[in-house]
C-alpha cells in the first residue's frame, strides 16, 4: 500500500514538473485571448522563449564565471524569454490588430516562424560554442530544485508534493492568482474582458480597444515564452536540444480551452495535462503504443469542448469576439 502511495506521489511530482511550462504557456494565452486575440503562435513563441532564455543564462554564466548568482541567472532567463515572446507577439499584434490580418493564419505562420527562429538561434549558439550549450551544475540547481528549506520537503507524504517543486511552479501559482485578481477584480481587467467580448461596446464606452489588444497580447506572449524557457531549464536539463519543446505550445492552446479561460483552473489543468504527458513512462501497458498515450490530452480537450457546448453555460464560453478583427467603421 505504501508502495502504491509513493508511486502515486512520484507521479504527481513529475506531473507538476511537466505541467509547469504548460501553466505559463496557458496563462499567457488566456491573457491574450481575453483581449479577443486568438494567438495560435504559442508553439513558436515558446520555442523562441526556450532558445533565448537558455542563451541568456548561458552567456550570463560565461561572463560571470564562478561568481554567477543563481538568483540573477533565473531573472535573466525569465527576462530573455519574456522579451523574445513579447517581440513575437508584437508582430502578431501588428498584423492582426493594426493591419487586421486573419488571426488564424497569422498565428499559424508565427508558430512556424517562431519554431524556426528558436531552432536557428539554439543551433547557432550550439555550433559557436563547440557543439554544446549547457548550464553548470551549480546554476542548474537554482532552476530545478525547490526554493524551500529541506525540512519542509521532508514532511511525510505531503512535503514533497507541496514544497519539493521548482521555483517556477510557485511563480506560476502566484501568477495565476494575480491574473485571476486582475481579470475579475480590477477596472483594467474588466475593460480588457469587455474588449474581448464586444469591442464595439468597449469602443463606444471610450475604451482604447487597440491599446488593450496590443498590451494583453504582448504581455501574454511574454508569459507564454517563459514557459518555453522553464521547459528547457527543468525538463530538458538545461541543455539545448532541438527536439525538446515540440508540441508543448499546442498543448497550452488546448489547455486554455480545457480550463475555460479561467486562470485558477489552469493550475490543476496543467498538472493534469502534465500527468497525461508522462503517463506513457509511468504506467506502461504492453502492446499499447506510446503515441496513443500522447494523444490523451487532446482527447480530453475534445471531450471538455463537447461537454461544455452541450451544457450551454453562458459563463463558460470563449470571449465572444475571439478571433475577430475589430474595425470601428464596420457596421
Amino acid at each position, binding site marked *: 500500500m505504501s508502495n502504491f502511495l509513493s508511486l502515486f506521489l512520484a507521479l504527481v511530482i513529475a506531473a507538476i514538473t511537466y505541467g509547469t511550462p504548460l501553466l505559463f504557456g496557458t496563462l499567457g494565452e488566456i491573457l491574450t485571448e481575453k483581449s479577443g486575440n486568438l494567438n495560435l503562435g504559442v508553439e513558436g513563441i515558446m520555442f523562441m522563449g526556450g532558445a533565448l532564455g537558455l542563451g541568456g543564462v548561458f552567456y550570463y554564466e560565461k561572463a560571470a564565471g564562478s561568481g554567477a548568482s543563481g538568483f540573477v541567472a533565473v531573472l535573466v532567463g525569465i527576462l530573455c524569454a519574456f522579451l523574445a515572446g513579447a517581440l513575437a507577439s508584437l508582430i502578431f499584434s501588428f498584423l492582426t490588430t493594426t493591419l487586421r490580418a486573419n488571426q488564424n493564419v497569422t498565428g499559424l505562420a508565427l508558430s512556424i516562424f517562431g519554431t524556426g527562429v528558436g531552432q536557428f538561434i539554439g543551433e547557432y549558439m550550439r555550433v559557436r560554442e563547440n557543439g554544446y550549450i549547457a548550464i553548470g551544475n551549480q546554476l542548474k540547481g537554482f532552476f530545478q530544485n525547490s526554493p524551500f528549506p529541506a525540512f519542509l520537503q521532508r514532511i511525510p507524504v505531503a512535503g514533497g508534493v507541496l514544497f519539493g517543486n521548482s521555483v517556477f511552479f510557485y511563480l506560476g501559482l502566484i501568477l495565476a492568482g494575480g491574473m485571476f485578481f486582475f481579470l475579475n477584480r480590477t477596472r483594467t481587467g474588466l475593460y480588457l474582458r469587455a474588449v474581448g467580448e*464586444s469591442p464595439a461596446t468597449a469602443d463606444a464606452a*471610450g475604451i482604447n480597444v487597440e491599446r488593450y489588444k496590443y498590451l494583453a497580447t504582448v504581455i501574454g506572449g511574454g508569459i507564454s515564452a517563459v514557459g518555453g524557457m522553464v521547459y528547457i531549464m527543468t525538463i530538458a536539463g538545461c541543455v539545448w536540444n532541438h527536439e525538446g519543446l515540440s508540441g508543448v505550445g499546442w498543448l497550452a492552446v488546448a489547455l486554455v480551452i480545457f480550463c475555460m479561460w479561467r486562470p485558477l483552473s489552469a493550475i490543476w489543468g496543467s498538472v493534469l495535462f502534465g500527468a497525461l504527458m508522462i503517463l506513457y513512462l509511468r504506467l506502461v501497458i504492453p502492446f499499447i503504443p506510446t503515441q496513443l498515450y500522447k494523444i490523451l490530452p487532446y482527447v480530453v480537450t475534445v471531450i471538455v469542448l463537447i461537454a461544455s457546448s452541450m451544457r450551454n453555460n453562458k459563463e463558460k464560453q470563449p470571449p465572444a469576439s475571439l478571433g475577430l478583427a475589430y474595425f470601428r467603421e464596420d457596421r
Partner: protein
Amino acid sequence: MSDPVCAIELRGITKRFGEVVANDGIDLQLNRGEILSLLGENGSGKTTLMNMLSGIYFPDEGQIFVNGQPVSIRSPRDAFAHGIGMIHQHYKLVDVFTATENIVLGLEEGGKLDVRAAGAKVRDICERYGFDIDPAQKIYDMSVSQKQTVEIVKVLYRGAEILILDEPTAVLTPQETDKLFDVLRAMKADGKAIVIITHKLHEVMALSDKVAVLRKGKYIGTVNTAETNPQALTDMMVGHAVTLNIHRPRYENPAPRLEVRNLTCLDGEGVKKLSGVSFTAMGGEILGVAGIAGSGQRELLEAISGLYPAAEGEIIYTPEGRDPSDLVGKTPMQIKKAGVAMAFVPEDRLGMGLVGSMGMTGNMMLRSWRKGKGVFVNRRDPNALAMEIWKELEVVTPSTEFPVRRMSGGNVQKVLVGREIASAPSVLMTAYAVRGLDINTSYTIYNLLTEQKMKGVAVIYVGEDLDVLLELCDRILVLCGGQVSGVVDARAATKEQIGLLMTRLGGKEGA
C-alpha cells in the same frame, strides 16, 4: 416653467454621405424639462442628426450649442462631457457582464473597481426614476426592456442631462412602453431634456411636449404637441404629393397569379412577424407594398420564396395556362423553378443575392449552376447574359469579371435586378430596389419593372418612397405590424391616406 433654459440648439446642421445629403440645414431647439419627438419616415435623417449630437458623426456644416455655448462634439466621450447620452436602437452591452459592470465600463475613475459602491449608485438612480433592474444580474438573463433600462441607467450614471432615445419602443410590449414613458416623464420633471426618435404618432401625442418633423433630410418644422393632431403631423411627415412622371401603362386583362391566404409567420422566438395576411397579386400589375421598416415586408417576400417558414395559411400560385398549386412547404429551389423570382436588396445590398468577391459572370452562375454537363459548369451562357446586362442596363464596370463588391451601389442593384428579370419569371419580387440610387438609375429600374408588367408578370414592389409607390404601382398593399392595414388603388389614393394606414391599423388605432 417660467424661464426655460435652452439645453440644445442646432443651427444649420448639414451632413452628406458622398452625394447623398442626409441632413440639409437643420435647425432645432430643445429646453430643459422638455420632451421632443423627432418624427419622420425611414431615411428622413432622424438618426443621422442625433448621431451628430452623440459624437458618432461630425457635421459638415452648422453649429451645435449646448446650454447656450457653441461646442464641437468629435467622439462619444466628448458627448458625455457635454452631458449628452444616446440610447441606440441596437444596445451596446457585454452579455456576460452584470448590469453594474456594463454601466461602469470605460469610466476613468481611479483606483480599484468597487462593484459594491457602483451598485449602490446604480440602485440610487433606479429608485429616483422608478427603474426596476437588479445591478448584479447578468445581461444575458435580461429581457429586452431590462437591457434598455441598463442602457438608460448607463447614460444617467455618466451624469447625462440630455438624453436621446432612438426608437425606444420598437422592441417593447405596450406595457413596457407605458412604463418607459412614466420613467421619461419622471426624468422630464427632474429637469432633463429628452429627445425621442419615433414614427409612431400615438406615442408622439401621448408623451412629447414638442414635435420636430424631418422629411427627406430637410427640417419641416416644430409644433407644440398640444396644438396639433395626428392628421396634421402625417401631412408634415409625408408632405404634398410630388409628381414624378413615371410611365404607367395599363395591362389589358390582369389575371390572378399569386394568392396569399391568411398567411401567418412566426420568428424563432414565437413572435408573429406576419399575422393573417391575405392579398392577391395579378399578372400584368405592379403591386406596391408600403409600410414602416420592419412591418413584415421582408418576411412576406421570404415566405413567398420559401426562405421563411409559414406557420399558417396558403400561397396559391397560378402560372399562366396551368393549374394552381400551393407554394407553402416547397423548397426555394422548387419555387424558383416554378417561376417566382426575388430580387431582394437588403440593407447591406450584397448580403442576399450576390457574392461580393465574384464578378458579374460568377453571380449569373449562381442561378444556373445546375445546368451544364457532369461536374463542369457552363460558363459561356452566364457570361453572355452578363455581357447583355452590362450593355442593356449600362452597368459601370471594367469587365464582367470585376468583383461586384467594388462596384457602386447602383450598379450592384442593376446586376441583381437584371439577373432576376433575365430568368423570365412570372412573379418578380423586389425590395428596396432603388435604395440609395440616383434619379436616373432609379428610372431605369422603374422602366424595367414596368416592362415586365406589360409582359404579364406579377410584380411585387416593396418600397419606401410613397411618391414612387403612388406613381409606379397599380395597387398598394399597406402593412402595419405584420398585418394588412389596407389595399388601395394607387391611381386614386393619396399620400395622407397611405401614411395613416402605415401608422394605424385600418386607420383606427390610437385615433
